[in-house]
């Protein structure tokens, strides 16, 4: 049961990482800011601007 719970937590963490939710949490922690619409827009624009120059795989 504990192992199943651990796998579940890992899957959720992976989904949150893929969804950039973990990165947003890190961004808030690094800058000492609270979540808000303005902060999310600032974070996601910065993140996607950086991501847009990365080649995508076939």
């Amino acid at each position: 049961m504990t192992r199943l719970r651990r796998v579940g937590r890992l899957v959720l963490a992976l989904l949150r990482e893929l969804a950039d939710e973990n990165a947003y949490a890190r961004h808030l922690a690094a800058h000492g800011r609270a979540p808000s619409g303005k902060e999310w827009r600032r974070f996601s624009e910065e993140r996607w601007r950086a991501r847009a120059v990365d080649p995508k795989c076939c």
Partner: protein
Amino acid sequence: MKKIFQHLLWAVVAAMAAIALGAIALYRGEAINSMWLVVAAACTYAVGFRFYGKFIAARVLALDDQRATPAERLRDGHDFEPTNKWILFGHHFAAIAGPGPLVGPVLAAQFGYLPGALWIIAGAVLGGAVQDFVILFASMRRDGKSLGQMAREEIGKIGGFTALLTVLFIMIILLAVIALVVVNALKGSPWGTFTIAATMPIAVFMGIYLRYLRPGRVLETSLIGLVLVVAAIFGGQAVSLSPTLAPLFTLSGVALALAIILYGFLASALPVWLLLAPRGYLSTFAKLGVIFLLAAGILLVRPGLQLPAFTRFTDGTGPIFGGKIFPFCFITIACGAVSGFHSLISSGTTPKMIGKERHAWPIGYGSMLVEGFVALMALIAACSLQPGVYFAVNSPAGVVGTTPRAAVATISAWGFPVSVPQMESLSESVGEKTLFHRTGGAPSLALGMAQIFARTGGGRAILGFWYHFAIMFEALFILTLIDAGTRVGRFMLQELLGHLSKPLGRTHWMPGVIGTSAAIVLAWGYFLYQGVTDPLGGINSLWPLFGVANQLLAVVALSVASTILLKMHRTRYFWITGVPLAWLVVVTFTAGWQKIFSPLPNIGFLAHAGQLAGRLGAGGLTAAQIAETRRLMFNDRLDAIVCGAFVVLVALILVDSLRVWVGILRGTREAKVNEAPFVLSQLEPEEI
């Protein structure tokens, strides 16, 4: 005792790999079960990962957890961030897995299941995973530098510039060929076209929802998006049955190509948050979900392989693309065995997020093996179709005849019986007007996947839903790749043009943005239009061109990797990257040569142009036919020039690398390893 048990366990795994490989290689006659392929791949990959991967990690690259990674030293909470290895594994896998490992194996199935299966198994263990792992390691030890930057530092300025130019050219061909796959899948299909068209307003809704209504709730937004996309599949069925709506969504190949070109331009110029970002999230989750579903479906259904181990087309006369197993099987399946494009991901975001050096082993080597598994599943899905159906779907009208009667007569004469009523019944059950001449790989893969999914429950009654679900998933992430790829191509072009004119290099200067976006879209749009209007389906010329280009990029990556290994160990471990490099040089240069100069018109671009010139010279053609023939001849010659340019560019990098290697071995060049200096890691394993 534990050690003896472990040795015994690995001996059993190795024996199972040998038995399964032997069975699929030697068994002839009745259809074999796909589980033989699954066991052969799973056991070979496990042994490869545990022993070969570990050997490279420990002895060759000497991964050291005491050494701080860039994620620790340069930690900024954004790009550089130590991340849990399994989370990063998933992240890296999601980034390397695209349409390539799904489409390539389906096309290569024209040779039978065996050549593709063996190449996917051996190529991934000895080539693809090694390339991804060594490049990931090299970038990690160089503060996350890109392949181009490493080529410039390790080989020289020519290598760096040529790498950038090669990537840009490859990107253009890649975008054209994958757009062609989507066009061929949606041509004349109101159900599919409606579903894909609906994903655009869904993505825009998601973008607005995420930006203004629920900022930061990406998982919640993606879940809503997925529910809406599934609803759109049901909506597509209603549209296809409506006498008023169906004609609106029944588009020709040319109309679809123009729509995709317009979409590519708008998507690359629109704000990222509105379309690209929400589609990106949606596509990532759909991709991982469907791969997981397909794996579960194959394990539950355990389909038999209907295609033989080898077909008659090993002689090079295949209807899907011309050419023999060597070299064409090895360039048709690039992603899934060895893919040069992976080196761009391995030197992109991933090296900046590795918390401990030893994590590079499962992330770099392991995720490529999982991609090999995805390719194998696509091969199984295609080979589980009845051979006559497989060839009827994938063969262009220019080869098998334009009418259903002509097509079934040609295909049955090849020894793969199929009938018109059988094809009609199949198209009816998936809600399509016809399944003949649906080249590109996506429709036959969708058909194979749909049959597997339908057998897990629901049967023939829900075959149509699963078929369009599979088409939606393939088109969704291909279109995501098109909008993201066009944007990346635009940045690359701006970087190159910035050397000529500073304003053109500025990524926020609107005239520059619009001009470079238009240039990239027109470049891939031209090749797309060429493919759509090609009587032979376009895939036969564009997919090999893409395969050659992708594998040539692997030659660039392995040249950089070999140079680094030579500097680290001289010739001792050079073979690790040197052998796959030598193989790919032989394969790609042979394929490039044959595509340009083969005297057979079904293979060589120039021979095909010559054949068309002969028809033109013989006379008797109408004015429209003359114009059409001239256009086809121009396209053949253009393809030959593009193929030649790829080969010359990579030959330049190779010669430059050889110059460096000879210099190091003779002692006339310093074998300087350009790694970041050693810093002791303070990061506790529990922190990641």
